């Protein structure tokens, strides 16, 4: 089989999308958004969680392995970066960031091993082990936290080539650069032979195997790359958003949130990861603001957070029933409808001209 490099198969639409998003992210937002609040409370966590969601998307949406432990790998990445910056500061932040992703990837391979034997809910239980084990390990062994008695560690400042990146806007740009690189990488992987192997395994693993795709390699590769993305995401999340952290910040609830980003956003799409992350992150903010506007603080905050749970649950059920492919597919449908309407209008005009 002759294969062309993936970047040569980009269409003009792809490049246009990339250009628009790049201008939006690197030029427009830094000019238009002045307040630190937007960077440090919305844009930075959104980008970090989107990256983690891409990791979840790779293992679940593309390789079809039902894993539930993204937060565990995020914790591995975050604490790996903390220790690398502490113990090997001479390597520099970019190298350490990649290394912390690799540490998470090693855990990914280890806990991806059960996927060779089991699938579905069985695999989910097996991956839960990684979630609980990693958090427990960081919690119990003081070395990972530099023997800090409070159990809470403070992330070091980000220094790249001697320049400090500490202001919200600067950190946003750092995160954006990393997320951009990894997203392009992810898109290339999913469009290339790697991604095709994943999808073949997802759609029917026995058939894929009989066609000569190595299940061992494909599945473990998916777990490793997924954990790498989650690890880098966790490291960025810790160093640019949380700043001081304890292992509990990466508990099973975060894993569930990332799972829902992928499900609601749309399984098997990279854009779904971003849409899902935006929704999961913004929805509670919107609901809280609405609740305060309508009830003027008469309703307890805990009640609002309970209602938030209910609405999330109902949304998941509705999406599963009516659009299992999530918001990304919903968006595609809307676009297709607009296009077909426009198409119908132009053809009507042409008909009129013909008359």
């Amino acid at each position, binding site marked *: 089989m002759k294969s062309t490099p993936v970047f040569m198969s980009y269409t003009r639409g792809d490049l246009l999308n990339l250009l628009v998003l790049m201008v939006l992210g690197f030029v427009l937002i830094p000019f238009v958004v002045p307040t630190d609040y937007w960077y440090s409370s919305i844009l930075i966590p959104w980008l970090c969680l989107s990256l983690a969601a891409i990791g979840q998307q790779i293992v679940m949406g593309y390789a079809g392995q*039902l894993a539930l432990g993204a937060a565990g790998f995020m914790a591995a990445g975050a604490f790996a970066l903390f220790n690398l910056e502490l113990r090997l500061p001479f390597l520099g932040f970019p190298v350490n960031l990649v290394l912390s992703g690799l540490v998470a990837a090693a855990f990914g391979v280890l806990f991806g091993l*059960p996927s060779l*034997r*089991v699938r*579905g*809910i*069985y695999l*989910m*239980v*097996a991956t*839960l*082990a990684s979630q*609980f*084990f990693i958090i*427990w390990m960081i*919690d*119990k*062994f003081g070395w990972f936290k530099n023997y800090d008695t409070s159990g809470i560690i403070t992330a070091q400042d980000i220094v790249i080539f001697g320049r400090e990146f500490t202001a919200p806007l600067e950190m946003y740009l750092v995160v954006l650069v990393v997320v951009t690189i990894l997203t392009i990488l992810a898109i290339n992987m999913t469009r290339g032979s790697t991604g095709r192997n994943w999808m073949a395994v997802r759609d*029917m693993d*026995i*058939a894929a195997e*009989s066609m000569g795709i190595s299940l061992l390699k494909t599945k473990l590769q998916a777990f490793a790359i997924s954990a790498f993305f989650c690890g880098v995401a966790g490291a960025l999340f810790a160093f640019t958003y949380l700043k001081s952290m304890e292992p509990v910040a990466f508990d*099973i609830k975060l894993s*569930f949130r990332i*799972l829902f980003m992928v*499900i609601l956003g749309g399984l098997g799409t990279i854009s779904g990861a971003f849409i899902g992350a935006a929704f999961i992150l913004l929805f509670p903010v919107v609901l809280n603001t609405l609740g305060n506007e309508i009830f003027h603080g008469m309703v307890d905050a*805990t*009640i609002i*957070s*309970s*209602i*938030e*749970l*209910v*609405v*999330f*649950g*109902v*949304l*998941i*059920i509705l999406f*599963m*029933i009516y659009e*299992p492919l999530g918001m990304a597919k919903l968006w595609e449908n809307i676009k297709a409808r607009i296009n077909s309407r426009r198409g119908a209008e132009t053809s009507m005009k042409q008909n009129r001209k013909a008359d």
Partner: protein
Amino acid sequence: MTEFLFFIEVVVAGLLAGTMYSLVALGFVLIYKASSTFNFAQGAMVFFAVLSFVGFMEWGLPFVVAFLVTIALMALVGLATERLVLKPLRNQSEDTLLMATIGLGFVLEGLAQAAWGVEVRRLDLGIGDFPIQWIIDSTGLFISALDLTAGLVAATLIIALALLFKYTRMGLGLRAVADDPGAASSIGIPLGSIMLMVWTAAGIVALVAGMMWGARAGVQFALVDLALKALPVLIIGGFSSIPGAIIGGLIIGATEKVLEVYIGPFFGGAIEGWAPYVLAIFFLLWRPEGLFGEKIIRRV
């Protein structure tokens, strides 16, 4: 000798605690048998049931009335689930159904907290969580009364359910539905009432499990996470087997306690959090279909 006694004590405490896992796992198995859905919301059902029960008690309802009202409520929840969630999802993939039940879990947790509040409630069943004197006198073992009661209640429930499914028309119907819902309904087995019965049974099991746990640790949100431990139990026992759920629970309960007491100290303790999952992984490598589960055969 005292060391051996201590070992027995640890194992017994583990086994009795394991019956509580068995109870939650039993709820999973019941629903799995009847509608071949893995009901991830079972943990949330435990929380929902016991929180409602405590809420009704706080309204001043007597114990028995509150118990019955809660069971009726759980049956209602089950019917609504069957009608609104599972029916529209018929013929969808197992993973899709699983996601939907995760969503259902969130709905139940949210509803329970919105209705009854988020603070930790105490549940006093009148059974203390302290060793029983006559057992100490006769055997020298320290065994908690609450553990013992939980074990007995669980055993009674399990035997009752097993008899119900084995010897009644309803039970026969259930087994037919589990085998092939289409064929079962075409020969006139009332699917609706079978489902009602199964969801009621799952509700009772959830409520009892919640009461036992609530009496020990307080009725609180953490129950949902505890109920997650029923998952490794199911892996070990198999999803469709009632005896499997029981034995899986006992194995997990006992192993987790023994590991915690004898191996935990070398690792800084609290290995209970992940030990059951790792145990489940080893079981998966050995017997992916569980101890009593049906062998999974997959074809292209």
